[in-house]
């Protein structure tokens, strides 16, 4: 086999237990990767050491950073970028894209229903306490009709490839999913480092995200507004995703604001400018529900705008995503996705769900407590990979602690079999070589009244620690440029 001579991969260790994205079932390089593999093979490892450090400093210089919470000293870190891209062929992408749209649409119909007739609850497809005991269900949204009927304008769907070669969805993120700016930055960085590789592939662009997002935001403008004034609101520069907020505002050509830059007068929202107040019609908000308006929600929130919710409810301003959307971004709701899709769309789910055990159900709780070592335990309402326990990595004492936590508040936890995320060759600094690392994929879906768009790319996240299964940036993950190939 010609592959062996490839110097870059000469020391690449292939664990037969894992699904490696670049090899087929017989251990041969997949056709779509062959060219890339050959081109990379023409370089020496020292070239990569060089390119890698250049890419890193380029990210720092552009300020493409994030922050990790929970450490005493909050640090700005770059999101490590890997030079070896992931390639998704058109047929596989077709499944991911259709599956992402299907889920977004179903979730939107679900949200409409639970804030209106509540048919899905009355038909007992989804248990009522899933809604009533959720901290993210907003009574204030009952009976509210968001412009265009859209709640989850922007969704981030996390999918993985299991060792059976099939895609599974791990999570639907519909509060304020982040990461799309990295998709675009990764592409730019790779083009800078290894421009030549793009000559050999017909890759879909990812730079059209901002124009699609702006088009969506303008399409859900309030009634009676001709040309809407769109802004992006951020919690501020100390938020972990601040870079992204500023990036999106910049690329859409709209203002980036904080709560203190806006005010509400007679139920209309205005932005303070040096030329005087300017009316705001559509807000892409990257602030959680509880913080958007201290007069309606958390009174101690300094991030929001007093009176914003009343202006929203009156229809004078549009918020994306709609308040109350978070109730469907709940790991317990996730487990009902196949039923939710079937109920509203009368379709079979295109993407698989991972089987989930509900600790709120006595028989399933019993199973979970007895099988913790082979399960992933997840709190239902935490984002960013916080609070996740992976059974086979826990010590005996840790298992007991987890058991105790579950028994104390079973509703708070769900459990899933440990999925074997596919692996992908990834350049590792410490060993100066390519090694297998687990990857997932976050897709970005935009949903409008007559519009659905999935960014043809998405964010491939890499768990950089060997054997680690959690890919979130806050948990020490990196990312890869992700190519979706055009149909030949």
């Amino acid at each position: 086999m010609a592959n062996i001579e490839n110097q870059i991969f000469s020391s690449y260790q292939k664990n037969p237990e894992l699904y490696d994205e670049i090899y087929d079932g017989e251990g041969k390089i997949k056709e779509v990767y062959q060219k890339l593999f050959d081109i990379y093979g023409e370089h020496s490892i020292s070239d990569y050491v060089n390119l890698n450090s250049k890419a890193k400093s380029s990210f720092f210089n552009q300020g493409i950073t994030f922050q990790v919470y929970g450490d005493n000293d909050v640090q700005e870190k770059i999101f490590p970028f890997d030079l070896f891209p992931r390639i998704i062929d058109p047929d596989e992408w077709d499944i991911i894209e259709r599956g992402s749209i299907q889920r977004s649409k179903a979730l939107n119909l679900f949200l409409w229903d639970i804030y209106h007739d509540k048919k899905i609850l009355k038909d007992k497809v989804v248990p009522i306490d899933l809604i009533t005991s959720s901290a993210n269900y907003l009574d204030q949204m009952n009976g509210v009709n968001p412009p265009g009927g859209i709640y989850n304008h922007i969704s981030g769907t996390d999918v993985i490839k299991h060792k059976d070669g099939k895609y599974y969805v791990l999570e639907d993120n519909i509060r304020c999913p982040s990461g799309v700016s990295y998709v675009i930055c990764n592409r730019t960085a790779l083009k800078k480092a290894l421009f030549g590789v793009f000559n050999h592939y017909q890759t879909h662009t990812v730079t059209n995200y901002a124009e699609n997002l702006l088009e969506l935001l303008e399409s859900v403008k309030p009634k009676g507004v001709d040309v809407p004034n769109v802004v992006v609101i951020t919690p501020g520069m100390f938020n972990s995703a601040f870079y992204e907020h500023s990036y999106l505002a910049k690329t859409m050509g709209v203002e980036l604001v904080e709560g203190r830059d806006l005010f509400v007068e007679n139920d209309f929202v205005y932005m303070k400018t040096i030329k005087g107040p300017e009316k705001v019609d559509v807000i892409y908000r990257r602030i959680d529900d509880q913080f958007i308006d201290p007069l309606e929600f958390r009174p101690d929130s300094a991030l929001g705008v007093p009176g914003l919710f009343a202006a929203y409810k009156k229809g004078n301003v549009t918020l994306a995503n709609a308040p109350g959307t978070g109730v469907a971004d709940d790991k317990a709701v996730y487990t009902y996705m196949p039923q939710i899709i079937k109920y509203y769309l009368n379709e079979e789910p295109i993407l698989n769900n991972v089987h989930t055990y509900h600790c709120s159900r006595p028989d399933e709780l019993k199973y979970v407590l007895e099988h913790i070592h082979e399960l992933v335990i997840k709190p239902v309402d935490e984002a960013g990979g916080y609070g996740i326990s992976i059974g086979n990595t826990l010590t005996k004492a840790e298992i007991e602690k987890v058991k105790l936590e579950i028994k104390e508040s079973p509703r708070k936890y769900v459990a899933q079999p440990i999925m074997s995320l596919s692996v992908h060759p990834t350049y590792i600094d410490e060993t100066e070589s390519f090694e297998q690392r687990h990857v997932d994929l976050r897709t970005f879906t935009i949903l409008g009244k007559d519009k659905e768009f999935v960014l043809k790319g998405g964010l491939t996240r890499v768990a950089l620690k060997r054997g680690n299964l959690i890919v979130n940036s806050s948990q020490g993950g990196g990312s890869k440029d992700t190519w979706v190939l055009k149909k030949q």
Partner: protein
Amino acid sequence: MSNEYKITYKTENTYDNWVNNAYWQFLIIPMENNTQHDVNVEFSNSLFADNEYSINGFGFKTIRVHPKIKFKQINFEAQFSFRKDDIDPFDFPLDLDDTLANEKIKEFDFKIDFESFLKRTPLTTLPDGTSSIFIFDPSNSIFKNLQNLNHWTFNHIQFKAGVTQVDTELKDVIATRQGVCQDFTHLFCAMSRKNGIPARYVSGYLNQEHGLIGDSQMHAWAEVYIPLVGWKGFDPTNNIMANTNHIKVCHGKDYKDCSPLKGIIYSQGQNKTKYSVKVQSQQ
């Protein structure tokens, strides 16, 4: 018969240091409903800032004030005048057959439709082991059970101002057996909800000219939903049904949905607040 009401609501706020920015939202306007008509509102503040009328997340009218100058003191004064019809709390057949109502409250769809007013909130959660301190008697009608609950709540708690706060939980109220109208109402709502009867917290004013007990500020009572009858007001602080003397402003799951004044004050140091409410009626 109807009554002409006049309510004066005043508050004075003084701050140690300059306040550069502040927002207030008042939820104090008597609502218009089938017994409260022609509500006229006069509202003023000592800084002559604009008063904005808006609707909060639960559909009730608010007044919002956002002064554009810095200050150390601000006073508000509201005057409401309106007509209130005489209420006969017993305007339904008391001998109503309860079989249907009892079936209704067990229906799944009913539980979903009234979910907001059946669920426990932090302020209406009964502490463990106390849910049987009052028990509905299945041989009684729903209405009779609620009357008994009203009576029981009235006897179980001693009215005493200053013992509890607006965010005092029921475990403390049940432990001390003292409190004010909010606490009576939270306890009443919790017990009613536990027995499957939707109950909502009502905030409003009480005409104390006839010797009823209440705070000198705003009053609280409960409304419960009896199938085939509708929402009925109970005032456990006074062991009566809500009547012509109860002027409703708004309702919600508990005090938190109804707090009469929300303020976002950007200032440091101490502040003092004084309130007064005067309710006058004329037949």
